[in-house]
């Protein structure tokens, strides 16, 4: 029984991790149809901001993870959108190339500034017991952040003017502009929001894994699989795909080995895309956000 509880917690933790890895990418892709290949590097930046602010400046780990990292990376995202991405709207391949170049540049820059060594920080929460088992309190925190992010996004899209305009531009930018919305500003804000969420994800995952300039590469594949598997709806899609892939990979990890767990995740993604080329929300939950 205790083991079942621990197992469920690990599965939910894995789902939350996938949500945090992919939500920033999902916002940018789902709303703007921009494939941001620098997403992993945005996460890496978030991790560095959190760890360095804590280790070097002595700022509380909670503030640097939950406030500083999304703020800094979000502002960086706005800058990137203004300077680079906005010239390429509607040209998907070009944005891919441009953001890929940006990702290479960011890896090189981070290596020059921070060095090519893994930096880490101890996870700030103590463990706790479930019956005779011990588990990490930090997993609960990761789950809480993922829930808060999804809830916050839903409230933003559903109940604010900005959310309404954003959804309108997402469906038909020309029509939204004709009705008085300003797609340019909306796109800038959306890209900034996506970047901020990537930074937050990278920062929250940093104490678990440690940060190195090339860590983006290990995030981006899973983030992409989740976003493509989820389909066009940002929140529902991310949640559905994360739940599916997280459960599959953790179940196999428990039953067999961590190596097979990763293989199972990829296999599940291939089967899913074969059956539902538009992703889960392309077929089901069509009207969801």
């Amino acid at each position, binding site marked *: 029984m205790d083991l079942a509880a621990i197992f469920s917690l690990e599965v939910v933790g894995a789902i939350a991790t996938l949500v945090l890895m992919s939500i920033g990418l999902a916002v940018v892709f789902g709303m703007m149809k921009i494939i941001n290949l620098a997403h992993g590097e945005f996460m890496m930046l978030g991790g560095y901001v959190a760890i360095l602010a804590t280790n070097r400046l002595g700022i509380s780990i909670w503030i640097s993870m939950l406030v500083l990292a999304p703020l800094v990376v979000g502002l960086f995202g706005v800058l990137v959108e203004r300077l680079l991405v906005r010239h390429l709207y509607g040209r998907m391949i070009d944005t891919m190339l441009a953001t890929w170049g940006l990702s290479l540049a960011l890896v090189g820059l981070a290596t020059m500034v921070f060095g*090519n*060594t893994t930096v880490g920080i101890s996870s700030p929460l103590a463990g706790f017991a479930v019956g*005779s088992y011990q588990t990490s309190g930090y*997993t609960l925190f990761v789950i809480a952040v993922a829930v808060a992010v999804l809830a916050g996004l839903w409230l933003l899209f559903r109940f604010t003017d900005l959310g309404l305009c954003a959804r309108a531009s997402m469906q038909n930018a020309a029509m939204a502009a004709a009705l008085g919305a300003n797609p340019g500003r909306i796109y800038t804000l959306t890209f900034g929001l996506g970047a901020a969420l990537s930074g937050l994800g990278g920062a929250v995952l940093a104490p678990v*894994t*440690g940060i190195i300039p090339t860590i983006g590469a*290990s995030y981006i594949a899973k983030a992409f699989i989740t976003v493509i598997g989820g389909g066009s709806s940002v929140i529902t899609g991310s949640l559905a795909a994360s739940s599916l892939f997280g459960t599959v990979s953790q179940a196999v990890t428990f039953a067999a080995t961590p190596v097979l*767990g990763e293989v199972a995740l990829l296999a599940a993604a291939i089967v899913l895309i074969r059956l539902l080329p538009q992703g889960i929300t392309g077929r089901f939950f069509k009207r969801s956000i």
Partner: protein
Amino acid sequence: MTSSRRQFLGTAASTAFASALSLRGLDAFAAEDKIKVVGIYDLSGGLDIYGKPVVDALRFAAEEVNQKGGLLGRQIDFVNYDAQSNMQLYAQFAQQAALKDKATVVMAGITSASREVVRPVLDRFKTLYFYNNQYEGGVCDRNYFAAGVTPAQTVQKLVPHAVKKWGKKVYIVAADYNYGQIVSAWVKKYAAESGGETVAVEFFPLDVTNFGATISKIQAAKPDFVWSALVGGAHMSFYRQWKAANMAGKIPIASTTFAGGNEHIVLSPEECNGILICQNYLQELPGAANQDFVARFHKRYGADYPYITELAMGAYQGFMLWAEGVRRAQSIDRLKVIAALESGIAIDAPSGKVSVDPVTHHCTLDVHIAEVRDRKLNLVESFAQQAPSDTAAVCDLRKNPNDAKQYTIKI
């Protein structure tokens, strides 16, 4: 006016040309006069935690030899190539060391995977190769010398100690490549021999950072202790997550890889206190020879140098063994140096006496069990002059000098 200008240009050009020639000549002479030693180690990427101390130690060894007048009256020119934890770069740099640099000796490789990339290249181009790390044993190659320890020297000591101290059931977590696979087989064997049993073995690719599921599985299996053969920066997350799950101190850990990459300095004391290790060298070893070495090393690199790891000491010892071989051979010719090293060379290293076993090209040396406590390795028990008996069981270079492969020892 024109002619004098032309003259001037001509003279200037020929002077420049001549001086360039003579400079090149001098340069070539200077380079030839030096003995080239090439290192290939990771100064960046996931394995940098091992590579940096090793390169510091090799540079230190080369400087010490040079300060005492060099070898055969020639100075040593040591260069290191950063392989960036990338196997392809190991292959490229090994070729460059053999063909372009014409290195007298190459010291290279942290992981067994990288060693098996470098070794055939250096065999083919007939360049002497020293591998200075602890590893799983079994490489039998006349062109190759192993200055580090093998499982028969460390695992065989630590497993019975842990079984006696903590209990019979062991759970093994290991890196997923030849080192982790073979060492966990040795742990299984020695555990069985000392009356223990292995409840599970789990392997992790070198870039895995999430150990949550495994930590739950370990608790479900209720072992008496965990054996870690985890390797590299990413796997350090295991100890972090172990502590985050409140497991530190609840189920003890034994390892022969822990502390090899300064893990006990990088992690917090709460994350690693109580872990038992077994290796050839501890910076804390008593004795004047070691204290003198640590003082010299700190004078060169600063008193705040993090820690002189076992791998760093292995590299220093490997370098000094090779230097002794050159002195005895009175030549840097590869075959003469190999013959000299096979004549039973020994050095008095900071870790104690280190001698080359002529039959296997591995070393006989002291090993120590130690406990991690507040960023220090506290000596628990020492074992003098351990022979590489595992490799000796399969390898006899006197009988088969043309052997050049790694035996996976039947366990």
